[in-house]
């Protein structure tokens, strides 16, 4: 997994609520058996539809966005991890919002995409800052848990320590868990003995 330390880049604002994974990655891009080819799928109907000229990711400087400042409940709906793979292939490294849907939030963590949760007033501030093309660049420092801008803006954020560690180190989650192989086997033996109808 790609690790995340300090990343500087353009941030784009996508303020709508409840942006679902059908919108992030429409169904016609779900027909693969690998993770590739999803760059064009990201926000497909918004990027290539009738009002494409207005869509933030089609405008400068945001077409080079590395971060998205998003509305509440971002990533709701379908579990499709294709949404996260596509965002990564588009070049998005972090999402900043007030809340993320649960499955999507976990999918981000498994793919080196940093999802940062902030308070509504902080999101309002960031939205105003990055909506100005002259001040759209941010730096996210995960080890120090800060978002900064050349203007002097500095926002600290919280992240669960386990998530932070695996993002910073780019850990292989399966490999890490398999180090506990014996503990799992032992648990399983006891569990199936107590619940023999499941064995």
């Amino acid at each position, binding site marked *: 997994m790609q690790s995340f330390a300090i990343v500087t880049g353009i941030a784009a604002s996508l303020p709508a609520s409840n942006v679902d994974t059908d919108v992030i990655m429409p169904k016609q891009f779900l027909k693969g058996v690998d993770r590739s080819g999803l760059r064009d799928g990201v926000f497909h109907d918004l990027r290539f539809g009738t009002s494409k000229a207005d869509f933030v990711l089609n405008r400068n400087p945001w077409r080079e966005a590395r971060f998205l400042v998003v*509305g509440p*409940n971002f990533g709701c709906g*379908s579990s499709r991890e294709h949404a996260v793979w596509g965002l990564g292939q588009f070049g998005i490294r972090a999402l900043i919002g007030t809340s993320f849907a649960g499955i999507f939030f976990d999918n981000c963590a498994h793919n080196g995409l940093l999802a940062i949760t902030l308070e509504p007033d902080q999101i309002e501030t960031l939205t105003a800052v990055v909506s100005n093309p002259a001040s759209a660049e941010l730096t996210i420092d995960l080890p120090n848990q800060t978002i900064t801008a050349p203007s002097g803006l500095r926002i600290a954020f919280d992240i*669960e320590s386990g998530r932070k560690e695996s993002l910073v180190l780019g850990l292989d989650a399966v490999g890490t*868990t398999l180090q506990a192989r014996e503990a799992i086997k032992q*648990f399983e033996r006891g569990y199936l003995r107590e619940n023999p109808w499941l064995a």
Partner: protein
Amino acid sequence: MALARTLYDKLVDSHTVRHLDADGRRVLLYIDRTVLNEYTSPQAFTALREAGRPAWRPGASLGTVDHVNPTASHRVAAMPDAGAARQAEYFAENCRDFGIELFDVLHPLQGIEHVVMPEIGLVLPGMVIAAGDSHTTTYGAFGTLGFGIGTSDIEHYLATQTLVYKRLKSMRVTVDGDLAPGVRAKDVVMALIRRIGASGATGYAIEFAGSAISSLSVEGRMTICNMAVEAGARGALVAPDQRVFEYIKGRPRAPKGRLWDQAVAAWRLLESDADAVFDQEVVLPASDIEPMVTWGTSPDQAAPISMKVPDPVLETNPDRRRDMERALAYMGLAPGMPLDTIVIDRAFIGSCTNARIEDLRDAAAVVRGRHVASGVRAMVVPGSSTVKRQAEAEGLDRVFLDAGFEWRQSGCSMCLAMNDDVLGVGERCASSTNRNFEGRQGAGGRTHLMSPAMVAAAAIAGRLTDTRRAVEGE
């Protein structure tokens, strides 16, 4: 003395292999079982192949093809679409190589994963089931913790039989009293989502309680738990009761004989302690609930059928007002329009939310002896091949066909339109599914969610209508 625990706490505790942090919020959670589909699993299998890892417990997984297959009335193994064909083929290869049982499209038990699992008796109280589909919450109807996961976590599950899991907060939703005649389980959950919002339960596991919930059939409870994810819940539970045990008993994969007795004795203990404290309590009086429909593009943009399309001007929250304006523009609706004047082009009865036998019986009772309005294309897609056979044995297929509905093969179909069942641009559909997102049923398609009986009534009337009036013959 031990602290009082919720049913959710008990399920997490009984499946905790080890704590991964000091306060026990992050745990390594043992997963009893999964069900796999052809579109969210391939990359998980590829990752196992690349790392040379076997499936930890292949017998605890089941595969069923459901998302991409066509539902045309004559079933063939071939997929018309090259991508779907490749997914079905690779799925078969993966299930074979990793020792996992597969229900392919021609299998007599094929169907939508969340319909198949309970109907063959693979969902049992007290289990934890994680699967690569958000509607895995359905299994909560059995007192089973079910939740959706992404493909990386499918890989993690297959390789280790566990997941790294963060404990959720708990919410109890109490629905006491009697539902009015004609009000269904779907209306209960739609009323809840409208009340708490599309992220009202994000970060929570819900426990449904109250006399209106215990009065519901197990299939009705499945509908409610299924759609709890549309409020953001990643787990929805109903404490299992005698009705659940009877529903499971005798199903092909359910425990038998002495093991059955032993299992039921354990299942009877599955409930929240009387003095358990929930992080949030929501009370929804049953008598307040009316037949519901959605008018917007998020499941919380819903209202009783007797109401009008809301006016964004009256919304004081600017973000919500902007979302409403966008939704109404997409849906092609004007504020103030009575909901029961909205004219439809399509009617769809299907999905893991509402395509079980009781749903089909309920919808058939509305259409019996009537005919679909001219200009409306109406479809029934049974939730599984088993449901389809059962409905045919009861003559329900004839009822639908005589009324002008198409009677099709099972699959996810137009719930998410990954196959060739798709809405055209601007087409408006009354749908018994779970998501009214922009483009969900086809780019530019307009979805109104409602119960199967309400879809049936809309198909007959040619517009959204109160099923209670439709049955009375207006």
